[in-house]
Structure formats: C-alpha cells, structure tokens
C-alpha cells in the first residue's frame, strides 16, 4: 500500500511543479463547450437537450488530450524501467498513475462542469446529476485511456493512434452518462443507468491496470 501512496504523491508533486500545465485540461474543456455554443447559435430549448452530450464530449476529449503524458515522461527518463523491475506489482503502480491522472485532469473538469451546465441552460438538479455522472465517469476515462497510452508509449508519434484505440472504448461511457442526464431531465428515474456507470467504473478500475501493466512491459522491452 505504501508504494501506491508514494507513486501517487510523487506524480502529484511532479504535476504541481508544472503548475501551468495543470490548467490545460480545464481550459480545453471550457473552450470546446464555448465553441459548441458559437458553432450552433441554437435556441435555448435545443441547447438544453444537447447540453449533457456537449459537456461529456468536451470532458472526454480533454481526458484524451492529456492522456499522453501519463507514461511519456517516465518512459523517457528511465523511471518506467525502474518501476517494472521493482518488486512491486506493476498493476498497483499503474493504478496509482491512473488515480494521479484523474486527480490532475478528471477532477478539475468534473468540478467546473456544473457551472458550464448551468451556462448551457441545464436546471440546478440536472447540473448536479451531470456532476455525478462525471464524477463516476472520468475515472473510467483515465483507466481505459491508460491501456491505450501503455500500448503506444513506445512509439515516437503515437497520439493519433492513441485516439483511434481509445475512442471506441469510450463510447459506452459516453452513452450511459449523457443518457443518465437526459432521462433525468425527462423526469424518469435514473437509478438504472447510473448503476451501470458504477459497474463500468468497477470493471475498468479492476481490469485495466492488469492490461496496462502487460502493455507497459511490452513497450519497455
């Protein structure tokens, strides 16, 4: 357990020392939403129905954008090799890195999402539900994304391939999360889709560290 906290603290420390980079995911998230509004100039009634999808696609893209430096810097300065030949199970280290990535990118996006939801015309409760779906959903994005990053970290120009590998796997999260908010706005109970989202979270947090560590061992070899 000690190793998990050490790697987590180390990654957060490294992120804080690059304070400027911390803002990138949030700025990108807000910018994408603003672009949607400018692009559509839709009537408020239409905008509200699209709001969950817009916010979620923006969150998904900002997670995808910042996935790359989850392992990239460790790969370059040899820290990844040290992790793999350490006695600690690599999947525990990967889980720590996934959590660190979520705290750095997923959490800030989730925190400011309700405000943007209100901006797009969502009611207070709908924004709250949006916040919950993001709170549950963004860790899934980091977990699944870690598999794609681990597979492509060895490549010099892997980023386009990364999005082709990862986006199809993001589809279920996007569907269930934005549908949860839509069904809430339509007044139906949302327990079903929310629990499916929780199930996805548990599944991705338990399976993806194994797959990512196998992929890392391959990329480093």
């Amino acid at each position, binding site marked *: 357990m000690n190793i998990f906290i*050490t*790697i987590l603290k*180390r990654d957060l420390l490294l992120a804080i020392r690059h304070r400027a980079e911390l803002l990138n995911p949030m700025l990108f998230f807000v910018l994408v939403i603003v672009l949607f509004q400018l692009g559509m100039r839709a009537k408020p009634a239409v905008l509200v129905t699209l709001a969950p999808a817009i916010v979620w696609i923006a969150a998904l893209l900002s997670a995808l954008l910042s996935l790359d430096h989850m392992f990239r810097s460790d790969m370059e300065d040899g820290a990844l090799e040290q992790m793999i*030949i350490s006695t600690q199970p690599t999947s525990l280290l990967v889980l720590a890195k996934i959590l660190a990535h979520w705290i750095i990118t997923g959490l800030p996006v989730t925190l400011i999402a309700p405000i943007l939801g209100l901006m797009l015309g969502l009611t207070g409760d709908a924004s709250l539900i949006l916040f919950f779906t993001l709170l549950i959903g963004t860790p899934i994005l980091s977990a699944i994304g870690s598999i794609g990053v681990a597979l492509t970290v060895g490549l010099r120009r892997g980023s386009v391939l990364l999005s082709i590998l990862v986006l199809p796997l993001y589809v279920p999260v996007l569907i269930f999360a934005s549908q949860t908010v839509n069904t809430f706005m339509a007044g139906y109970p949302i327990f079903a889709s929310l629990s499916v989202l929780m199930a996805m979270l548990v599944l991705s947090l338990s399976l993806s560290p194994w797959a990512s560590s196998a992929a890392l061992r391959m990329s480093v070899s």
Partner: protein
Amino acid sequence: MEIESQPYSQAARLGAENLCVEKQDRWLFQNITFQLEPGEMLHLRGTNGSGKTTLLRIVCGLTNADQGEINWAGKSIKQQRDEYHSQLSYVGHSDGIKQDLSVTENLKVAAVLARGKQQTPKPIDIDQTLRDMGLNKKKDTFAHDLSAGQRRRLALARCLLNDTSIWILDEPLTALDKHGVEIVENMISAHLHRNGMAIVTSHQELTINKDRCKDLDLS
C-alpha cells in the same frame, strides 16, 4: 569511507545459457553463455551497436531473448521474477532520475520501489549513501540543477541504498570526473568484496582487482 561490510545474504550464482537475439534479419549476438559467481564482476565489451545494452536488459528481465535463458540460483529468472528483482539494481543509459524531484526525493522513491513492504529508509541511510557518493551537499537541490556527473552518481547511489547483491551498470563512468570515477571504482570493489556481483559495460578501463573480473567481448 566506511561501507557496511557484512556480505549479502542472498548472493547466488548468475548465469546465461546460449542467448541469441535477432535484429532486422541478422543475429545481434548468438550463443552467449557466461557464469558469474558471487564476488565476481563481468566486464562487457564491444563496439557500439554490438548489443551490450540489449544483453544487460535481458539479464535484468526487461527484454526477452529470442533464444536462451538467464538463470539465478539454479532457476530461470522467469520463474522467480520478484525474488530476482528484489536482489537487482539496474542503472541504464537513461538513469531513471526525475528532473523535477530533489536528490532525496528521488532516492526515497527508488528505495520504496525496491523495499516496498517495509517503510521508507531511515533518513540516516540516505545521508550515509549521499556522503559515500559525495553528494551530501546537494541533498535538496533539484536533479535538473545537478551536473551530468552528479546525476550519474545519484543514479548509482540507488545501488548502495537498496543493498542488492546484483548490480547491472550500463556505462557507469560516463560524464564522471577523475574523483567521480574513483568513487565508483571503490564502490564496485567494496561491493564485490561483500560477495556482490556486477555486470558492467564501459569503454574506460576499470581498475578492479583482476582475479575477480571476467571479460566478455560481443563484437
């Protein structure tokens, strides 16, 4: 420069049997076999691109050879991955130092990676290791403020701190000044004296007593 001198408890024979690695349609090297007894050092020589680094990474278990086996204490390392890695320290070309962490922070993370279960090493261990490596004045400076030679010594300090019986060092003397080279040579011979083993690649000659030193030329 006093280094604890009791021998490593888990030192055991490390050997390789006819390792072969293929690289783009030709053999990088074929049928490499060597045996290393506790207390001995293998000096790996060879021209650039003759596969020295690949061989080191195979011994570390980072890469798999196309054919052949590495065995430690009589068993293949693939079956005893964790015990083998608990006895191994590897310093490669990219030395695994995070530029934005301070010297002590880097060593703390490296120590937890190696020890894991027990707590992080007591501060005096870190100070002792830094004093041995001549870095004690640089305790809290960031790694990116260190010179290349100091960074190299910081990477090598990991081997001392983690107290592992097998050292795999890839060009440990690069970027080191005369004083640095002397520190590293004393460190290695003390390590061999404690029944430790080392596999080293280096273009410069290492003044280590000859009877403990084996040679292997890949080119």
